[in-house]
Every structure is written in C-alpha cells, then in structure tokens.
C-alpha cells in the first residue's frame, strides 16, 4: 500500500508546468545554506501537431541539466531522458543555479516549437520522504511527527546561520564602500588642488616667457 502511495506521489507532484522553446535555456535560482539537499524532478511533453495536444511521453526527448554553485563552478552537468530526477547537496551557502535546456537530436520533433516541462524542486526538509523513514526506522506516529519537527528546526537553524554569514558579507561590502568613498574623495581633492597649482604655475611661466606679463 505504502509503495503504491509513494509511486503515486511520484506522479502527482509534477503539478506545475511551463513551456520552453527549442534551444531555450531556462534557469532557476535556489539560494540555500550549506549541506542542504535539493531534489529536482521534471517530466517533458511534446506538442503533437496532428492531434493538437501534448503527447503523454516521447522517447528520444532529452533535457540537459546544468547546476552551478555560488562560485559559478559546475557541480552537475548531465543529460537526462524525457523524465528525469536530479539531486545535489550544497557544500557552500549561496545562490545555486539550475539550468535546463532541451538537447534533442531529432530537431524535426520541434517543428511545432513547443515543449511542456513539468518541474518540481524540493529543498531541505521537503526532500524527506516521511512514510519511507517511518517504515525504515520503524517509528510510531508520535516519533515520526517529532522527527519532522526536528528536521524543520534544523532547517531553520541552517537558514539562520546562513543569514549571519550573509549579513557579515553585507557589512563588509558596506565598510569597503565607505573606505573607498573616503579615500577617493581625498585623492580627487588632492588631484584637483595639485593640478590647479600646476596650471597656474605653468601658465605664469608661459606668459612670462612670452613677455605678456
């Protein structure tokens, strides 16, 4: 029973969808603390001109998934089929970028130009499959609820830590701007004064040479 439920869960969550063009690349940003798991699932459907509707599944249709970490280093770059599931765990806190683009070799398929992509991205404690955990660790209902609360609190803690790190970065940026404004203002005033004095001196000597003064 549980297995059937989890299978249905797998089908049901591809609820939100959007349309993507042939060579279009769609990117999504996930700003997450470190050591956070992200699971992404997608399902693609191709527009069939003959029937005027979307086909339930098309073999040979692929999507290329590329995930970059906050330092723009690629942590995952893989080709998946028309239905795919990708997962990664962040090692640095920050903005991770998940990009999808279709990479079908059969360009003729895209004559209609529309591809429907169902996407679901779950982050942190939403990645936990509680019925599975209950079955594996043999937890009672109360224990499972406590486990869920613990996971939520852990996620809140991680986010707070990340918040502290971000605030520190913000503070450093502001202080750097402050320093720059200070030093460059002083430098520019000095340049102004020095060039002013040089101009006067130079012109004075020039006019004296020309015997106009």
């Amino acid at each position, binding site marked *: 029973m549980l297995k059937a439920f989890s299978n249905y869960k797998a089908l049901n969550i591809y609820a939100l969808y959007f349309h993507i063009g042939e060579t279009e690349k769609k990117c999504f940003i996930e700003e997450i603390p470190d050591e956070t798991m992200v699971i992404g699932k997608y399902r693609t459907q191709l527009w069939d001109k003959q029937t005027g509707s979307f086909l339930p599944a098309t073999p040979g249709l692929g999507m290329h998934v590329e995930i970059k970490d906050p330092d723009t280093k690629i942590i995952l770059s893989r080709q998946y089929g028309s239905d795919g599931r990708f997962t990664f765990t962040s090692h640095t806190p920050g903005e991770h970028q998940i990009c999808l683009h279709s990479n079908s070799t059969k360009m003729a398929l895209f004559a209609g130009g529309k591809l429907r992509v169902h996407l679901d991205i779950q982050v942190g404690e939403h990645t936990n499959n509680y019925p599975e955990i209950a079955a594996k660790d043999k937890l009672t209902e109360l224990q499972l609820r406590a486990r869920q609360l613990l996971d939520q609190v852990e996620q809140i803690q991680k986010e707070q830590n990340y918040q502290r790190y971000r605030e520190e970065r913000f503070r450093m940026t502001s202080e750097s701007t402050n320093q720059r404004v200070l030093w460059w203002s002083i430098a520019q005033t000095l340049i102004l004064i020095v*060039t002013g004095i040089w101009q006067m001196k130079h012109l004075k000597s020039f006019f004296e040479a020309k015997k106009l003064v």
Partner: protein
Amino acid sequence: RDWATLSAWQLVLVQVLWAYLLCGWTFGSELTFELPDNAKQCFYEDITIGTKCTLEFQVVTGGHYDVDCRLEDADGTVLYKEMKKQYDSFTFTAAKNGTYKFCFSNEFSTFTHKTVYFDFQVGEDPPLFPNENRVTALTQMESACVSIHEALKSVIDYQTHFRLREAQGRSRAEDLNTRVAFWSIGEALILLVVSISQVVLLRSFFSDRKTTTTRVGS
C-alpha cells in the same frame, strides 16, 4: 495479498481509488527565476474545484523591483491582475476544474533583468501518514505536534521573505561598491585629462601666429 496476482482491472480500480484519495492533497511549488527585459513567463497548473490556493511572489533583484502579475482561471477569467508590484500574496478557492495560468511580465522594462520568486501553494500538505483515517481524532500530543509544525512552516516562510529582502539590499550595496570604484577612477582621469588639455589649448591661443598672418596678407 500480492499485487502481482491482481488482475489488470483490479489494479486500475486501485489506482483510481488512490487518485481520488490524493486529489485533495497536492504539493506547493516555490521557484526563483530570471525574467529578461521585455519578457513574459507563464506557469500553468491543473487544479480541481474547491481547492484553496495561494500565490505569493516577490521581486528579488532588478530595476525598481517591480513586475506585472496576472492570474487566470481555466476559462481565461482574470482572477488577479496587478501592475508593477513588488510583493503580493493572493489566496483564492478554485471555482472551476481546469488549467490555471499565472504570468509574470517585464514587458514595461527596456533593459533591466528581474529575478522573481514565487510560491504557489495548491491545497493542503499531504498528511504524514497516508493510511491515516481522517475521522479519528488526534491525541493532545499529536495536536500539539501539528500546531508546532504549522508554526514552524510560517517561520520558514518568514525567513524566506526576509532572505529575499536582504538579498535586494545586499545586491544594491555590492553594485554601489563597484560603481564607486569605477566612477572615482574615471573622474580622477577625466580631471587630469581636462586640466592638461585646458593648459595646452590656452597655450595654443598664444602661440606665434605672425608667420601665418603675414602669409595671408601678401
């Protein structure tokens, strides 16, 4: 009873029952995406009648932090339409079955890319125990757990919105930092160039033109 021994129609019946059981519970989607200038991005979701849904969105970076948002139901009736909004939350109950569509538009902007965050919750979260009979009452401990869970969910939601607002401030600060450096160096250079060229120009006014005037005269 082994699932393999069930006949095909029995399996179909079971699946239909599961689908019926699950139709009340659907998950929410939370995404952050980049909206280029003059672009419009639409998202669709199939919703059953009577489901309570919430759409929340916030502009994270770009320009004046505003975006046009439009939510239409299955027949194209506009349920929500706002222009140039920075943040909003809209709750509605689905009055019809079908595909609901919501779009974010940056068509009024000529060159700023916007990053938009949205959270579209459809229905309630699935219960922790799929086999749970909804009729049985929860014990006090379980009710306490449920209320703590709901409270923590709202804490996480507030944290998300705080993070997005803080991201706005931080990206502005970082922009300011780089801009200050560039403009300062630029201004210093302009200052030097202008002052030297002033002197050179002035000198050229007083240079010996007697040779040229005599040539013209004769």
